[in-house]
């Protein structure tokens, strides 16, 4: 079976019949976009690796529930996004339940990324993080609320259409456009501050 030649839906059909080569090809096609999205959502490499692996395992265990009317990429992104958001929620409940503010998560993320920059010698991992997510734009993205982050990343890193982003995030298209506009306005304000 010449798996690299198959399109995404054919690959899923092939994987459903238990073909390991098809599973490998699906991973090869989507590991970067899925990992990128999760990494920028959780902002910790090891956690992101773990969550991305789990997202693929989840997807592969539910291959029979894939609806061929949708794009395979949307389906995998949806599982990845939900999995990362679940993780962030669990962690917020664990650590920051007192404030209950929708921005608490973002403040925490911001502190984490500041720490990573402030103490680059603290650990090889921290230094690595600071380098990978340390640019002004990455820092600013890290301060957006997670749903805004996903919308911006799917649009600008993955180049997805509004319809697809809406499908992945289970939102109306109008809401996606609003999210994108607000997210970019926040980013512009944060980056403007840096310049002054």
């Amino acid at each position, binding site marked *: 079976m010449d798996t690299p030649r198959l399109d995404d839906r054919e690959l899923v059909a092939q*994987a*459903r*019949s*238990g073909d*390991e080569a098809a*599973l*490998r090809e699906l*991973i*090869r096609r989507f*590991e*970067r*976009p899925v*990992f*990128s999205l999760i*990494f*920028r959502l959780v902002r910790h490499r*090891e956690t*992101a*690796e*773990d969550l*991305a*692996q*789990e997202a*693929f*395992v989840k997807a*592969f*265990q539910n*291959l029979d529930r894939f609806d061929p009317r949708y794009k395979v990429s949307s389906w995998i992104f949806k599982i990845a996004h939900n999995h990362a958001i679940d993780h962030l929620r669990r962690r917020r409940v664990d650590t920051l339940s007192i404030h209950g503010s929708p921005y608490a998560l973002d403040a925490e993320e911001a502190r984490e990324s500041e720490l990573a920059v402030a103490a680059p010698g603290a650990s090889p991992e921290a230094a690595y993080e600071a380098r*990978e997510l340390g640019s*002004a*734009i*990455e820092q600013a993205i890290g301060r957006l609320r997670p749903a805004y982050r996903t919308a*911006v*990343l799917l649009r*600008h*890193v993955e180049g997805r259409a509004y319809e697809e982003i809406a499908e992945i995030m289970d939102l109306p298209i109008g809401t996606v456009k609003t999210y994108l*506009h607000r997210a*970019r*306005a926040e*980013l*512009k304000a944060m*980056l*403007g501050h840096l310049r002054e």
Partner: protein
Amino acid sequence: MRNDRDQHLSDELLERYADADLAGAARASADRHLAACPACRARLSEWQSLFLQLSALPQLPPAQGFAERVLSRLVVGAAGAAAAPGKAARRAVRVPGWARRLVPAAAGAGALWTGGVAAALFWLYRRAGATPGGILTWAAGELRDAFWGGIVRVAEVITLSGVGTYAVPLLLLWAIFGAFATWGAWTLYRLAGPTARVRSYA
């Protein structure tokens, strides 16, 4: 845009302009205003700078061997599901990250242990002049003895061969090593034949 001169361009319009999401008359009208209005040009350049930075964001790759790690988790999950169908079938068994990273070390220990046993048997054969059959008979005899008795006999054999002072620590090390190697072998067994197990699951 009722009047190009009187009203500045809205933030939303400038955003769409920077995103190349304006066409036709709307775009032409915006162009006219921008040509005459430095304030809106400055606001536009902020949007343009943002879009430029966003478009330069790279995809970040996972560490090498990502596919292998996904597939091994899938296999472990499938084995768990086969052993306990029903509720467990939904959820993959979680193998902690440190354990997964130790697998190659454990596999190496298993290989070393097997090699060590082979070498020891060969050494006994050469040094003590024992035939393979003789060693087997002796081992079978030892197995019939009580557990501690067996340990003492092995210690005696080692003492007689001249490495006596190291006998106890060596035996202890060997036991720990053996446990580690058994675990390695078990892991290898679980990972063997991924295709067959993935098939049974998918």
